[in-house]
């Protein structure tokens, strides 16, 4: 650890790349989340019916069916064999995320993500304690439990509590008391458990992580030799245990953990441009600079 770790988060990146450059993927992600939400809202709000339905199941341009594969799987286990339309929709979504990156759903589509992201932001600003940190595998256990309960009760179990589809449906069809659910998640992440919901509990994220474990889109610490240990990437990453093997390890610089949500915050926040988006077969690292000594602090950095 150096004095640099005590500097305000992201200050170096902003100094090096400008504010926009240091928030590029964050802004793109918010734009993407908004885009997917607005697609669904154009119909009910403005009568422009490009997409009908919700994230659980939708029909685009009256042609393309999409079904959430986790909901679909629960339905299967609950004992219902869905019609072809639903099955095709689930297959399309499954293949798409398996190819691109499972938890791309989390960072780029899921409407709960901005909620937990803001909770994390505030958590950092207030300098709160980590709080309750359940084991890594917890969400997988919850996922399995949800599937077993679906089988035992013959109902799509997680949809009874799933805040993602509830919030999405709430915005499109009518909120009811969903805001209380969203507030609860915000407070849980803020006061009870840092990164609690998306990092430890949500079985949907766990499911997408699993299906995307061999996916193409990866973040690579290709330029890891330039890392000056400022630790900013660890501070912003919602799943920061995924960073070390790539950044500090000796093998592949690719972040291969299925937990990585491909949010790109590490790329944004790094003043040294250590990280980049690439595909899973690109294991190249940038050759270390001539002098293998630790990089010198830059002149622009205000100590």
């Amino acid at each position: 650890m150096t004095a640099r770790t005590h500097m305000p988060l992201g200050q170096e990146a902003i100094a090096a790349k400008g504010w926009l450059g240091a928030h590029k993927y964050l802004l793109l992600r918010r734009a993407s989340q908004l885009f997917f939400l607005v697609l669904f809202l154009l119909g009910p709000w403005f009568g422009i019916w490009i997409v009908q339905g919700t994230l659980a199941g939708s029909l685009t341009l009256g042609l393309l069916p999409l079904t959430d594969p986790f909901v679909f799987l629960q339905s299967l286990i609950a004992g219902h064999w869905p019609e072809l339309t639903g099955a095709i929709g689930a297959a399309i979504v499954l293949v798409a995320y398996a190819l691109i990156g499972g938890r791309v759903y989390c960072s780029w589509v899921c409407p709960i993500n901005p909620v937990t992201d803001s909770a994390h932001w505030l958590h950092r600003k207030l300098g709160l304690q980590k709080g309750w940190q359940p084991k890594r595998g917890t969400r997988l256990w919850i996922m399995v439990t949800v599937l077993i309960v679906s089988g035992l009760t013959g109902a799509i179990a997680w949809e009874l509590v799933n805040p993602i589809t509830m919030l999405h449906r709430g915005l499109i069809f009518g909120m009811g008391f969903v805001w209380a659910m969203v507030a609860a998640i915000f407070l849980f992440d803020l006061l009870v458990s840092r990164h609690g919901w998306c990092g430890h509990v949500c079985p949907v994220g766990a499911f997408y992580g699993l299906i995307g474990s061999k996916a193409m889109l990866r973040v690579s610490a290709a330029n890891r030799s330039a890392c000056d240990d400022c630790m900013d990437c660890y501070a912003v990453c919602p799943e920061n245990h995924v960073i070390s093997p790539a950044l500090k390890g000796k093998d592949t610089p690719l972040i291969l953990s299925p937990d990585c949500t491909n949010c790109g915050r590490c790329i944004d926040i790094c003043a040294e441009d250590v990280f980049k988006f690439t595909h899973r077969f690109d294991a190249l690292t940038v050759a270390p600079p001539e002098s293998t000594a630790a990089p010198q602090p830059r002149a622009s950095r205000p100590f």
Partner: protein
Amino acid sequence: MSRVGTPLSPQRRRFLQDSARAAGGCVAAGSLLAWLARDARALPAEALRPPGALPEKDFLSACIRCGLCVRECPYDTLKLAELGVDAVATGTPYFTAREVPCEMCDDIPCVAACPTGALDPGLDNIDDAKMGVAVLVDQENCLNFLGLRCDVCYRVCPVIDEAITLETEHNARSGSHAIFIPTVHADHCTGCGVCEKSCVLPEAAIKVLPIRLARGSSADHYLKGWEEKEAKGAPVVEGIIDLPDRLPGPGTDNLVAPGGFEPSFKLPEVTQ
């Protein structure tokens, strides 16, 4: 070397403890979820599922709560249950007859839109739908039962004269008129709710109820003799002796008939 009697290594102990904790947590969370799932099955009586909906238990395994059926309904009949507002399993489609009934579209767009088969695509004729059954629940307030000619529920029924008919009966109050009793025939009633919606009373006297509430059932072994006889074209039991019926007339214990006598058995006197 035998491991019997050697204490568990710390790692192993920790692993077992963690596993036990995880399993315990899962059972607790799972039970809670299972309880919610059971709870979700309690559909309020006034909430009707769209045409072709599977039986409630199967419906909850099939409906992904996408709302595509809601979007396709041209009359805005259907809505998705809102969390904490409607007592229906959250996010599932339903309608309330008295608010907006189902207009029984010929092409059943709601069923066509359902991607999962939660609304059974086997339903190709809307007249076969079974969303519920109308029941004339309040005979004391129904205008027709009072001897008036309201008839509204009868006239608006999309399956008029099959699902609902007017059965005449003598009006004992006036002594000289008929009562036209709106009578629902469950075999043909689709449960669309148009009658309930249209009932002129401030609170409908005819209501669509879920079939489980609206209908009784006869025991399996219960045969209707007259139906059996008609099907067979002959008495059900061959060679049965048909005893003469006791008709009022002379020689019977019927005081009203001329020549009748007092019955041998006397009811005990009632004393105040």
